[in-house]
C-alpha cells in the first residue's frame, strides 16, 4: 500500500534529485554524459545513494556469560563510511540468534556522533554465537546487509552446552563483523601508557593516551577503551585492521546493492526521537479515515499529549522521546469516532536478508579462563544488589506537562478531607463546576479571560490521558487522587483548539483502574532504551579498599567516551578488581576526518 507519506517522500526525493543533478551539472563539468542524463527513477536511486548513512558497532569484548552486560559503542558515519556524521538520532540495536530471531531489541537515543549502551544478556539465552546488528530508520530503506554487524559468543552454563563445538578452531567467527571505515582507509596511531608495569588488587591504574597520524601530528579522536579478561577476546584481534571483509561485509555507498533498484524510500529518518507511525481505518469498511485528529498520550502523572491530523490515507506520525516502557493510549480526539481500528507500523526491521552467525566452536585452551569467568559472573551478580546506584548509571528525566504551568493547581492533601471528587470540585476547584446533561455529568469551565462559561467542554485528562466519562472520574476514590490542575483558558495543541483543560492526577499515576467506554488503542510501548553507564568500584580510601564486597569484574574497565584533545592526548583512571591475571586492553576509535585507529595491549594484575 502506498501512503501519502510515501508519495510525498518520493516527490521530495525527486526535487532533491533535481537539485543534485543541477549541482552535478554546474559544479562538475567533467562528469560523463551518462551521469547528467539520468531518468527520474534512476535519479531517485542516485539520491538515495547520496543520502546514505552508515554505522560502526564496537563491543567491550567478544565472549560473554549470560547475566552479563554487553557494553557497546556506535559511531555514526556518512554514506561513504568515512567521516563522522550526526543525522539520525535513533539507532536500533538487535541481538539475533543463529536462526535469525531477535532475542533482544533496543532503541538507542544518539544525539551525538557516537554513543554507547549496555545490553544485559538474559539467562534464557542458549550458548552459541549471536549477531548484533545496528541500523537507523533511514538505513531501513537500504538492504539489511548494509547495517552494522558484530558477532558475539554467549555461554549459558545453566543450560546444555552440547551445541558448542570443541577443538582448536577459531573460537568466534568474525565473518559477521563490519566496519566500513577500516578496510582500505587511512589510519591514525594510538598508544596507551600505564603508570606501572603491573598492579595489585584494588589498585588505582592511571593511563594516558596519545593519538597521532602517520606524519606524527596529534589527532583529535573519539575513542573507546575496553580492558577485560584476556580469554574473552578472539585470538586474532591484532589482524583485525587488515582483515579481509567477507560474508555480509559490504561497504555502504556501493551502488546497486540488492533491493535497491526501484525500491522507494519508505522510512523517514528519525531526527528527534522514535517516530511512531500508523494508520487509522474504519472497522466497517476497512477504508482509511483521513483528516481525523488522533491524540497520543502516555499514562502517567505528567500530561504528554500530541495530536496529529491523519492524512488522506489515514496515516499518522508521532515523535516519542521518552525512555523505558510506557503505556500509551492512541484515540481520535473526537470520542464519537468509535468505529475504527489502528495499525502501527513495525519499528524494528523485520527482514534478515544477510548471513547469520555460524556455530560456536570453543577452543579448549580457553576453558579455564571461561570457567573462571562464569564463576566471576555469578559472584558479581550475588553482590550486585549491594552495589545498586553504582552499577547502573541510568538517568531519570523529569517529564513536563505539555501545557506548562497550570492556572490552578489543587493539591488534595492541602485541604480538609472531603467525601468524594464531586465535593472537591464544588468546594475547592476554581473555575470548574459539575452539571448534569442528558442524565450524564459534564464539567463546565469558566473562561479565565472573558469572564463567562466556555461553550464546549474542556479537554479532560486523567493521568495524562484524555478521558471524557465524567461520571467515572467522579467515582474515583478521593483517597486515590493526588492533585487537580486547571487551565481555564483556550488552549491550542498541535493546531487543535480546546476550551480549557482539567487534569486529574492520581497518586499512582495509572488512571485508577478507569475503563474506556469506547474503543482506544492502549498498549505498553518501548520507546527509547534507558541508558546504563558502566561504572567500576572506586577504592580511593582504605575503608573502600577494605570493603567486604567481592569484586570480580570480567570487564575491568569500559569507557566509550574518551576524546583526545587537540594535542592528541587524554587520560583516564580506574581501579583493579580482586581478580588477578592477564587483561587485554583494546583502544579504538575514529578521528574527525574519518581515520580509524586501534591498539592492543596487555595489563597484568598480580
Amino acid at each position, binding site marked *: 500500500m502506498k501512503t501519502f507519506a510515501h508519495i510525498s517522500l518520493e516527490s521530495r526525493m525527486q*526535487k532533491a534529485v533535481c537539485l543534485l543533478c543541477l549541482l552535478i551539472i554546474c559544479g*562538475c563539468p567533467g562528469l560523463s554524459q551518462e551521469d547528467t542524463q539520468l531518468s527520474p527513477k534512476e535519479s531517485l536511486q542516485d539520491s538515495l545513494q547520496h*543520502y546514505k548513512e552508515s554505522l560502526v558497532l564496537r563491543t567491550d569484548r567478544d565472549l560473554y556469560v549470560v547475566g552479563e552486560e554487553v557494553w557497546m559503542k556506535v559511531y555514526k558515519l556518512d554514506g561513504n563510511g568515512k567521516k563522522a556524521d550526526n543525522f539520525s538520532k535513533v539507532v536500533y540495536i538487535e541481538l539475533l540468534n543463529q536462526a535469525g530471531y531477535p532475542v533482544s531489541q533496543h532503541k538507542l537515543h544518539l544525539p551525538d556522533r557516537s554513543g554507547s549502551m549496555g545490553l544485559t544478556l538474559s539467562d534464557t539465552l542458549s550458548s552459541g554465537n549471536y549477531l548484533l546488528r545496528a541500523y537507523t530508520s533511514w538505513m531501513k530503506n537500504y538492504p539489511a546487509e548494509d547495517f552494522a554487524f558484530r558477532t558475539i559468543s554467549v555461554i549459558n552454563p545453566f543450560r546444555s552446552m552440547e551445541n558448542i563445538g570443541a577443538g582448536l578452531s577459531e573460537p568466534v567467527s568474525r565473518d559477521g563483523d563490519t566496519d566500513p571505515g577500516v578496510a582500505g582507509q587511512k589510519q591514525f596511531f594510538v598508544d596507551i601508557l600505564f603508570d606501572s608495569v603491573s598492579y595489585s588488587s584494588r589498585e588505582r591504574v592511571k593511563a594516558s593516551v596519545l593519538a597521532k597520524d602517520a606524519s606524527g601530528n596529534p589527532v583529535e579522536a573519539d575513542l573507546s577503551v575496553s580492558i577485560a579478561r584476556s580469554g574473552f577476546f578472539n585470538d586474532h584481534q591484532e589482524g583485525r585492521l587488515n582483515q579481509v571483509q567477507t560474508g555480509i561485509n559490504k561497504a555502504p555507498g556501493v551502488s546497486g546493492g540488492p533491493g535497491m533498484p526501484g525500491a522507494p524510500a519508505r522510512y523517514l529518518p528519525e531526527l528527534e526521537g522514535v517516530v511512531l507511525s500508523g494508520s487509522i481505518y474504519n472497522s466497517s469498511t476497512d477504508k482509511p479515515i483521513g483528516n481525523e485528529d488522533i491524540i497520543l498520550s502516555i499514562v502517567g502523572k505528567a500530561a504528554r499529549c500530541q495530536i496529529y491530523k491523519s492524512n488522506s490515507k489515514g496515516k499518522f506520525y508521532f515523535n516519542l522521546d521518552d525512555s523505558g516502557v510506557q503505556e500509551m493510549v492512541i484515540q481520535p480526539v473526537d470520542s464519537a469516532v468509535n468505529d475504527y481500528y489502528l495499525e502501527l507500523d513495525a519499528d524494528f526491521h523485520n527482514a534478515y536478508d544477510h548471513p547469520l552467525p555460524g556455530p560456536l566452536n570453543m577452543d579448549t585452551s580457553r576453558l579455564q579462563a571461561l570457567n573462571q569467568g562464569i564463576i566471576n559472573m555469578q559472584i558479581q551478580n550475588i553482590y550486585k544488589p549491594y552495589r545498586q546506584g553504582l552499577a547502573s548509571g541510568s538517568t531519570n528525566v523529569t517529564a513536563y506537562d505539555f501545557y506548562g504551568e497550570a492556572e490552578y493547581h489543587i493539591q488534595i492533601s492541602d485541604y480538609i478531607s472531603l467525601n468524594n471528587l464531586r465535593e472537591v470540585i464544588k468546594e475547592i476547584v476554581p473555575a470548574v463546576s459539575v452539571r448534569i446533561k442528558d442524565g450524564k455529568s459534564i464539567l463546565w469551565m469558566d473562561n479565565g479571560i472573558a469572564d463567562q462559561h466556555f461553550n464546549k467542554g474542556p479537554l479532560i485528562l486523567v493521568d495524562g490521558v484524555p478521558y471524557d466519562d465524567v461520571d467515572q472520574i467522579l467515582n474515583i476514590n478521593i483517597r486515590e487522587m493526588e492533585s487537580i490542575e486547571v487551565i481555564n*483558558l*483556550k488552549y*491550542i495543541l498541535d493546531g487543535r483548539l480546546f476550551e480549557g483543560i482539567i487534569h486529574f492526577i492520581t497518586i499512582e499515576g495509572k488512571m485508577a483502574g478507569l475503563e474506556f467506554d469506547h474503543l482506544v488503542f492502549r498498549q505498553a510501548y518501548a520507546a527509547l532504551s534507558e541508558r546504563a553507564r558502566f561504572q567500576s568500584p572506586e577504592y580511593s580510601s582504605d575503608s573502600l579498599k577494605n570493603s567486604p564486597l567481592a569484586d570480580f569484574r570480567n570487564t575491568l574497565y569500559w569507557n566509550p567516551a574518551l576524546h583526545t584533545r587537540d594535542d592528541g592526548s587524554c587520560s583516564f583512571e580506574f581501579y583493579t578488581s580482586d581478580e588477578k591475571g592477564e587483561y587485554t586492553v583494546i583502544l579504538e576509535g575514529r578521528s574527525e576526518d574519518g581515520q580509524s585507529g586501534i591498539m592492543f595491549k596487555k595489563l597484568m594484575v598480580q
Partner: protein
Amino acid sequence: MMLFSVTLTAQQDGHIVLQELYQDILHPTDPLLNGKEYGYYFQPRISTPLIPAEPYPQASVLIRKKSYSNVMLLYDTYKDLVVYYNPGNLSQNFPASIVVNSQIIEEFTLNLPSGQARFRYLSFPENQDGLLSEGFYEIVSEGSCRFIIKHSALKKVQDGAVIYQYKPERYLISSGAVFRIKGKKSLLEALSDRAAEVKQYLKRAKIQVASADKEQLKGVLDYYSALKQSGE
C-alpha cells in the same frame, strides 16, 4: 577530487532536504500554535509589560532546530512569557495572542529599541546565591564571562492605576559566580582579577556603568577577555 566534493555537497543537501521533509511530515502544523490564550491583564493605554510594546513582524524563533523569521513575538516581562501575536489566527477561531509553550522554544530574537535581543530559557540547577531564577534571559555575550539581562517589570499602583515599570537587570556569570551589575563597584567586583585595568578602561572610555547600554558593557567584557587572554 572534484567528484568527491560533489558527493559531499550532495550528502549535505540530502540532509537539508530530508530535514525539511521530516519537519513537514512530523510537525505539519504551525509550531507557534502551541499554547494557551494570552489574556491582556493590563491597560495597554496606561502601561504595558510587553516588549516591544507593539507587535511587529520582525521577530524570529528557533523551534526544534528550525528557525521561523518575521513573526510577531512579544515578551511579557512581568509574567516571563513569550506571546505569539497573529491576527490571522482569528480566521481559524483561534485566539490572536497565544503564550508559546516555553519548553519548545530554543531561542527567540526580538527587535527592541535598544537593538536586537536574543533570548534563551535558562535554568540554574546549582546554587546561584538565589540571584537568578529559571526563565527567559537575553544573552548578550557568552564565553568565559557570560553577560545576561533579565528583562523584568515591577507592578505599581500610580494615581489609582496599575502600571508596569520596565526594569532590566544585568548579570555577569564568571567562574560559576553570579554578579548583579548595578554600577561600577559591582562590575569591578565581578572582574576583580583585572579590576585596576578595567577601572582605567572605564575612565578612558567614559563609561558610566549604571547607565551604560549593553553594547558598552559588552565592550568592557571584550576588553577584559582580551586582558585575560594576553595574561595567560
